[in-house]
């Protein structure tokens, strides 16, 4: 999760999506597929941002309400919502977002460092900001999108 300093040159592709009024993007290399919303099976003792699990061709996929994770409030998923299936380290996770908007091709020097607006949420997830056609798109890191793996259960 080192915030690599922008150093130009290398181009990369990002997928941008919308949650409420804000726009975010993730590295396209992290995205495995995009699919429509289907009802999830609720998990007991899950944090509020974990909507539950769905069946992705035989695998059990946890669904994270990315808006709730980022502190933007929980979504009321409808058929128009979208799940971005992303690879996070060795796990696969589904991100519930409002809509996918674009594929952006950017170079590293276009990524501006996150301004020092010391919020935990920002520090944990936002890798940098992009200015695309006058809109601000937050480039987010998915490393900490899932709750910690190990519960200190029955400690």
């Amino acid at each position: 999760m080192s915030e690599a300093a922008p150093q130009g040159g290398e181009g990369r592709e990002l997928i941008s999506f919308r949650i409420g009024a804000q726009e975010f993007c993730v590295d396209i290399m992290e995205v495995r597929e995009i699919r429509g919303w289907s009802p999830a099976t609720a998990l007991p003792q899950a944090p509020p941002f974990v909507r539950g699990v769905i069946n992705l061709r035989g695998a059990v996929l946890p669904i994270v309400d990315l808006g709730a994770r980022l502190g933007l409030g929980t979504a009321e998923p409808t058929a128009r919502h979208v799940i971005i299936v992303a690879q996070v380290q060795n796990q696969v996770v589904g991100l519930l977002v409002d809509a996918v908007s674009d594929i952006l091709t950017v170079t590293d020097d276009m990524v501006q460092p996150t301004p020092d607006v010391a919020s935990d949420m920002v520090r944990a997830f936002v890798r940098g900001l992009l200015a695309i056609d006058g809109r601000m798109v937050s480039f987010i890191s998915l490393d900490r999108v899932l709750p910690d793996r190990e519960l200190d259960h029955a400690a």
Partner: protein
Amino acid sequence: MDPMAEIKATFFQECEEQLAELESGLLAMEGGDADTETVNAVFRAVHSVKGGAGAFGLDDLVRFAHVFETTLDEVRAGRLAASVEVVKAMLRSADVLADLVHASRDGGSVDPARCDTCAAELSALTGIDEEAADDDGMGDIEFRPMAAPPVDMDFGLDEPAACEASAEPAGWNIRFKPQAALYAKANETVLLLRELARLGEIEVELDASGLPLLGDLEAEGAYLSWTIRLRGAASEADVREVFEFVDADCELEVQALGGDGEPLQTAAEAELDIAALLSMAQAAVEGAAGESPPEAAFEFEPEPEAPAPEADIAAILVAAQAAVAPAAAAAPQPVAIPEPANLAEERRTGDDRRNAELRRVEDRQNEASKAAVAAPTIRVDLDRVDRLIDLVGELVINQAMLAQRVTEEGLARASSVAMGLDELEQLTREIQDSVMAIRAQPVKSVFQRMPRLVREVASITGKQARLTTEGEGTEVDKTVIERLTDPLTHMIRNAIDHGLESPEKRIAAGKNPEGVVKLSAAHRSGRIVIEVADDGGGINRERVRQIAVDKGLIAVEAQLTDDEIDNLIFLPGFSTANAISDISGRGVGMDVVKRSILDLGGRISITSRPGLGSTFSMSLPLTLAVLDGMVVTAGQQTLVAPLTAIIETLQPKHADVHSLGGSARVISIRGSYVPLVDVGMSLGYRAEPLDAEQGVALLIESEGGTRAVLLVDAIQGQRQVVIKSLEANYRRVPGIAAATILGDGRVALILDVDTLVAASRTAEAPRLLQAG
């Protein structure tokens, strides 16, 4: 991987198998239930390791294997008795050999002193005997010099088979001629001969000269007779006993073989060496004869002066048949006689191959007996099998989804689509079962590692211990097997270190100074039950209790049943050894064992009888991939309860449910009060407790045999579900064991009955809810 490394990897894989074979063979010899084939198998194992090691230039390994092989060869040739000491030395050598193989594979080295000691020990064993061997003039005769073709066929009926020198043990010469009545009473000569073979080494010759021409042959007649030379210590009574039930229907002569060999002995002294060679070759051929008909056919070559060509053919035919019979356990009666032409053909090919075969007789023997031991197998990467299993799992889910959709479409049950689907379902289930069977392996692979452990732990602790195993062939999924090794190792260490008493104490208690640890496996109602039992002193309950009090695990005034005290040893941080030994007191205790068994979806329990020993019993699922479950609803969520945990389901009545304290409820079932766990509540799916009468109660038995009732809203049905990991993409969830996918394609959670009940019992339910 480069080709050489690949071949080498295969070699080491095979080494593992050979070492396992070696060890189990030696153990059989130690247990005294070994026959010649076992000794041969042991020899072959060491021989193959040596051969392979030579090819890869693993000199240390070759050197040691060679010494080992030499000793084994002495045993095999009967020049060195497989006494307890000899077998023990060989078991130690097997350990060294295994270490050498592993050192060659993984790098590293084996203490040379240990190798040398062991090698010296082996040489000492053979050294003593070499003189004795020389005495009987046999020296180092081996099978291989059998290149000379002229000697090949001289051991027919008229050639007394074994002309070995005077050291030959006495035995019996048995002539056995069944009468038709014997067959009419459904007796089998094969079985009789086999019975004789149990008494000692036998050589059987068939006399088919009484056989008439095909035209005169009476289908139910008896024309054959056998001459059996039995070596060994069997008494005449033993021999007669074999024929006890048939002696009225046969001619039977039993003659003692003289101490100087055969009563029929004709070989001249000068021919002694050749004769000895012949007899050895014949013995080798005979070894193969049981499995390999063509060789048997020439072995039973009739007398040269057979009456007529036709009869000759017929006789050979019968002889061939008789030779086949021991293997096929078919009646040796000439009932189904194939075309004589075939027979001649068979004989001719037999003749042609004979010379070459005699030369390679040892090798062929290896092959034949290997083929008899194991059906053909192939090696497959585990990844491929796992991929297949995953795919089949998806197929099962898909099939269920399809079936559900067909039902939703309102197609009649008798429609061809629905019927086709039924067939598909059966087929999928069959595929699933077969695929699961691929992963199933006998627990032998784990059990095999234990004898060595027992030897080592016993020698470290200064105790005498013997391991007996039972049910090694019991099959269970590979993943279960893999994860069984550690807990089993730990339990066996414990059994010897803590369970068995010292030899002095055992003698004082009137027991055999050698303690027995029994390891057994069996299938029981869809699970595998593995038990580790020792015949030691049993659990010292007072001490266990005292330790638990000292360590603050239980209150001083706690009233515990014997069973509860026994189960204290599973508590974390419990160790009963007075002095912490370096074997089992490493800070990991039985709690770790219990944890790993629970992780496998198993249970562990202990029964102990003071002075008689303790038994640890583990019950594990046969596979970690599927589970028979009851699909239930709790608070609008569909859940699956493992069927193995459920004892019965019942409809609770208001009158049976009682509040106990604050929110706890108990239900009275046939007079006993059982805690009631509201599944919807404890998983947080429901804020208000479910009215018991509105729901269905599942009576379950959790770990340690305690009972509880799970209250759910409704039961949807019962089905086999494919277990899907929740941890792979998420994390462990308290109260949930895993997930599965139902016919509608949705994920359902599988309840972890034990943690659910434990949470409610220790009033941790509120904490459980807050977790995460």
